[in-house]
């Protein structure tokens, strides 16, 4: 199976391709939130590098979040368009699963909390157990670094923290006896390729926002664009 993976949940944009023959290339374009400009060109380049034509792709895997709303929409709209145009399978995986998978692939074992920067002082977080395989321990949710640190401490067991949410609020995680940091900012497309290849395709992939549109919560007045 030839698989293409798309990652746009964080400020970087990453693409990965794995061929039926087992050849794999991944690339991270990290020039700060320029997902739209970088993504399609990177897909084209990587496919050329492994000698695939677009129509050779059997499956598209996309990070459906949580993460940057705009980034998610760019990645998912691209994944929808590409898979629909080719009539190939589409699979959504979460940014938190990709972070957990990335840590697992790097040899990390134990209880891991994946943290994606949610802006405005918050993070998206989910706990996983990394043993012989990766298992989910709780639901993905919006929280704060301090809350997640406190609740981990209360459980009395050590945990490993990873993701750009940890990077952003490093001061809250570091120098704590029960917390280790595994440095990883961009959800792993390598892990995305692996997770996505073993999963049933989705009928519909939609962003995992985990947060209401701001406006719905506190809307005053807004004009149409000029």
């Amino acid at each position, binding site marked *: 199976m030839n698989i293409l993976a798309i990652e746009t949940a964080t400020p970087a944009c990453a693409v990965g391709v794995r061929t039926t023959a087992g050849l794999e290339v991944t690339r991270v374009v990290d020039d700060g939130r*320029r997902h*739209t*400009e*970088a*993504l*399609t*060109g990177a*897909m*084209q380049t990587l496919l050329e590098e492994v000698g695939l034509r*677009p*129509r050779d792709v059997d499956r598209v895997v996309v990070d459906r979040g949580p993460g940057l*709303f*705009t980034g998610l*929409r*760019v*990645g*998912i*709209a*691209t*994944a*929808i*368009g*590409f898979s*629909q*145009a*080719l*009539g190939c399978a589409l699979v959504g995986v979460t940014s938190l699963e990709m972070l957990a998978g990335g840590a697992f692939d790097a040899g990390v074992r134990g209880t891991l909390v994946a943290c994606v920067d949610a802006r405005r002082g918050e993070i998206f977080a989910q706990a996983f157990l990394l043993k012989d395989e990766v298992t989910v321990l709780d639901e993905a949710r919006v929280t704060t670094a301090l809350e997640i640190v406190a609740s981990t401490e209360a459980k009395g067991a050590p945990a490993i923290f990873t993701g750009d949410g940890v990077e952003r609020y490093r001061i809250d995680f570091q120098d704590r006896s029960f917390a280790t940091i595994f440095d990883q900012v961009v959800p792993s497309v390598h892990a995305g390729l692996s997770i996505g290849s073993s999963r049933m395709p989705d009928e519909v992939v*939609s*962003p995992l*926002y985990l947060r209401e*549109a*701001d*406006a*719905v919560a506190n*809307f005053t*007045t*807004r*004009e*149409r*664009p*000029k």
Partner: protein
Amino acid sequence: MALVLGIETSCDETAASVVDEQFHVHSSVIESSIDQHRAFGGVVPELAGRAHVATIGPVVRRALTEAGLDPLDPQILGIAVTSGPGLIGSLLVGLSAAKAYALAWGVPFVGINHLEGHLFAPLLERSDLEWPLMTLLVSGGHSLIVLQGGPGEHVVLGETIDDAAGEAYDKVARWLGLGYPGGPEIDRLAQSGTSGALKLPRSMTGDDYDLSFSGLKTAVVRATEKQHGLPVADVAASFQAAVAEQLLRKLRSALEHHPVKGLALAGGVAANSALRAGVTELAQEFGIEAHLPTLAMCTDNAAMIAAAGTYRLRHDAASSFDLSASPNWQLADVS
């Protein structure tokens, strides 16, 4: 037959359409998220962006199948997509999808200015248009007077210096406690009101072609604050007459200085009855043809984007995959 797939997601409509080089519309699909925005009295960008992601795939598929094309191998010349102006989060959905379709099918794509798209709308209903054309483009987002030498050739003679005409309608409607969008409701009420009931100032009396509606809106607010109990229908009629008066006065002046063969209305506010009547009269007076597109072609749609795309793909280079969305792209900057 050279077919172009058009995609439009600049505001609250997710639209896709297939048009040929003769500007015949083979399909035109529009999904609007307007119902989600009503409660907020205006389009909420984040909600619009969310709606686009949910609808873009099905809308494009429907446009292809309704045009009788194989959605996996549509045999099109290329893809035209609105890349500005508009809401950035909305534009990005259409643009991202368009690039992906282009890569998958191995066809070129081109970023289209939404306003230029509106200028192509009359061509979708009249292939025998005589040029040059004077076009009044009025909607919730834009208000311009444009002189068109031919398809793809345009000079912006004037534009609003503050609110768009449709925006002023929305604001006045909100002030009067009417629904959103305000245009249709004010237009409906105005039919039974007296347009002279409210004394509103004549605005923008200079001899340029620029427009302004913010002052009118403020004048309506002031007048209704002073005179309680004014019938809403009279306020609506007075406001509508004042908007039409300014637009038609500027149009008349443009026609006096620039002889043209036709006068066209474009944009969502082109549905306004006072404006349609006034433009028809004005065209008669100048002995030129009036082009009043059907409502479906006045409001945002992807057929107009596809039409502009057939022109751009023939005359210009295609866009490259690193094209960004341009939320503030001016029509005057389209080359």
